[in-house]
């Protein structure tokens, strides 16, 4: 039993850390420039496709990840300079419409370049087997993901909390006008934040590609979860994004695993097995509603 809980906790951690890579960029963009960027999920998709293409071309997964991060960051800069920059002063509706259009453009472009069927991105051979942890086996690749995710989270913490650039970012998130008045080039800062967020998206896409599937529309389902995360964590807060991601990851995984058997203790087997998965899939939204009810600003609001 403890083994099962431990393994499920690792699974939840793995899922949560990958969500964090997406939510971190999203929350900064949303927090600093008050900009809703729905195309964030598309950057994740483009990152996964670039990783698959570069891995196939070079034969190395690491080169694939590097190329994907670089390429997606450049794409992020391009989008920011040509389009997003014009939207900061507009209202949220205009931003949502324009970035939703970007999703459609990205999906169709990817469909034209790579086709409608999923592209194959395999785990590197050395990592495709299980490793023995205390008393049970766990997929080596998932452990790697947990490691990389934790490392990035730590780096991000140092970057945001301990460096001058991080200070500007935090200042921009809590009061943009004041930061500008103090002589920080918020416009340049934002281009950098967007490029950085795009690179994190690409990292998540490349790492999750072999576990999930590299396909058109993969960004939308995870984008919804990323929004749930930043709403739970508090918009603009990296710490909130981390806590929110881990909460969502754990609640989703443990819910899926435990709810059906929990229901079976007091319902008939048939009802439990049809009700369980349905309930498990709405569990994270219940969590979000609960957080919004008691802490409408999220757990760690950036502007308080």
């Amino acid at each position, binding site marked *: *039993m403890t*083994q*099962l809980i431990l*393994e*499920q906790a690792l*699974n939840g951690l*793995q*899922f949560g850390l990958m969500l964090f890579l997406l939510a971190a960029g999203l929350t900064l963009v949303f927090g600093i420039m008050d900009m809703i960027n729905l195309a964030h999920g598309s950057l994740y998709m483009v990152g996964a496709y670039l990783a698959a293409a570069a891995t196939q071309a070079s034969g190395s997964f690491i080169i694939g990840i590097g190329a994907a991060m670089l390429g997606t960051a450049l794409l992020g800069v391009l989008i920011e300079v040509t389009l997003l920059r014009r939207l900061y002063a507009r209202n949220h509706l205009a931003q949502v419409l324009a970035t939703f259009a970007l999703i459609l453009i990205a999906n169709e472009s990817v*469909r034209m370049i790579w086709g*409608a*069927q*999923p592209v*194959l991105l395999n*785990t590197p051979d050395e990592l*495709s*087997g*299980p490793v023995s942890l205390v008393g*049970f*086996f*766990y*997929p*080596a*690749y*998932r452990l790697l993901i947990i490691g990389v995710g934790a490392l990035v989270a730590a780096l991000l913490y140092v970057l945001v909390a301990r460096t001058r650039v991080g200070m500007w970012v935090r200042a921009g998130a809590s009061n943009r006008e004041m930061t500008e008045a103090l002589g920080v080039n918020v416009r340049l800062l934002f281009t950098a934040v967007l490029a950085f967020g795009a690179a994190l998206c690409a990292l998540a896409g490349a790492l999750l590609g072999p*576990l*999930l*599937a590299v*396909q*058109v*529309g993969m960004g939308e389902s995870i984008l919804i979860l990323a929004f749930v995360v930043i709403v739970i964590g508090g918009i603009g807060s990296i710490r909130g994004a981390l806590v929110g991601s881990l909460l969502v990851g754990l609640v989703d*995984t*443990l819910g*899926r*695993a435990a709810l*059906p*058997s929990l229901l079976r203790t007091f319902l008939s*087997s048939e009802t439990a*097995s*049809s009700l*369980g*998965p*349905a309930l498990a*899939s709405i569990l994270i939204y219940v969590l979000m509603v609960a957080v919004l009810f008691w802490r409408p600003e999220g757990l760690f609001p950036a502007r308080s």
Partner: protein
Amino acid sequence: MRHTKYLSLLAALLVLGTSIHAAEAARTSVKVGFLSTLSGPGAGLGVDIRDGFNLAIKHLNGKLGGLTAEVLIVDDQQKPEVAQQATEKFLKKDKVDFMTGIVFSNLMLAVGPAVFDNKTFYISANAGPSQYAGEQCNPFFFNVAWQNDNLHEAVGKYVQGKGFKNVVLVAPNYPGGKDAMVGFKRFYKGKVGEEIYTKLGQLDYAAELAQIRSLKPDAVFFFLPGGMGINFVKQFVAAGLSADSQLFAPGFSADEDVIKAVGAPMLGMFNSSHWAHDMENAENKRFVADFQKEYGRLPSLYASQGYDAALMMDAGVRDVKGKLDDKEALRKALEAKHFKSVRGEFKFNTNHYPVQNYYLRVIGKDAQGRITNKTMGTIFTNHADAYVAQCKMK
């Protein structure tokens, strides 16, 4: 002066109108609405059905029953609402004579009522929900492949015969998944460790695999079509579960699409099917050889089903001599089944589902070293589905 201009215009329009009507009376073409899943994780299935269907049309020289075939292909994106919209357009605007192609039963159940109300024949090349085999059976619905339960029943029987005692079942939470579990349990009588329902389209099975590990089953039966199954098998092997539990699946999760993506870990896996690419009959040999020539890959069971669906329409149209508006005659012609299927002999039951053989296949290496399926024996002979008694065909 002006009035005469309008009048002549009106007259011209009327003439145009009657000529369109005249064209409708003397049919020279058959319109087929092909709606299938051509994007997303289920795309492999729809693409195979489409390619099989198109190959048959090519073999028939672009005709169905002597009339020019017009095939309209639309992607349903595996979304019921998209499927409903496309169906509406097929029925009302394009006025198709046949519909086919849907992969997933939940989509089939979503569009079925509109198709049947419109008195359009639906020849299912895949989805075979239990609902349409039993109480909701319909004169306008035919399934040329199987009833959903059948392939799972065959695996259940085989697993039972091999003496496995503790089996965990995994299937997506949708009508086809429920049919799968019911079908398997109809012939497997041992202990079911757990019935795990996953979300349709789910790609990460970490939570389910941890649960399977804790249950320690001697066998795992899974029905996860398309990309879902590809991910499940890969993650099952990566989690180190293949050492303790034997994997079983219906042919859906062990055919060329999955083998191509997963490769060696599939070796030695037993599965069930009503068709196999190594079946010895003239129609099948031609189909398999030409499919490889045309598309550069081995056909899957889905491709064979698409191929058969076109052959079935061809025979039906020919039998009624192109008089597609005589629905009663067309239904009788379709029921009579005057075509040679690539799976060999089969006939339609009173609920318009096949009565046929089901075979055991194993994944191994063929003479050229390719990993592929090999037929091992027959599990069921002339097997009918379990719902036919509830069907009162009107």
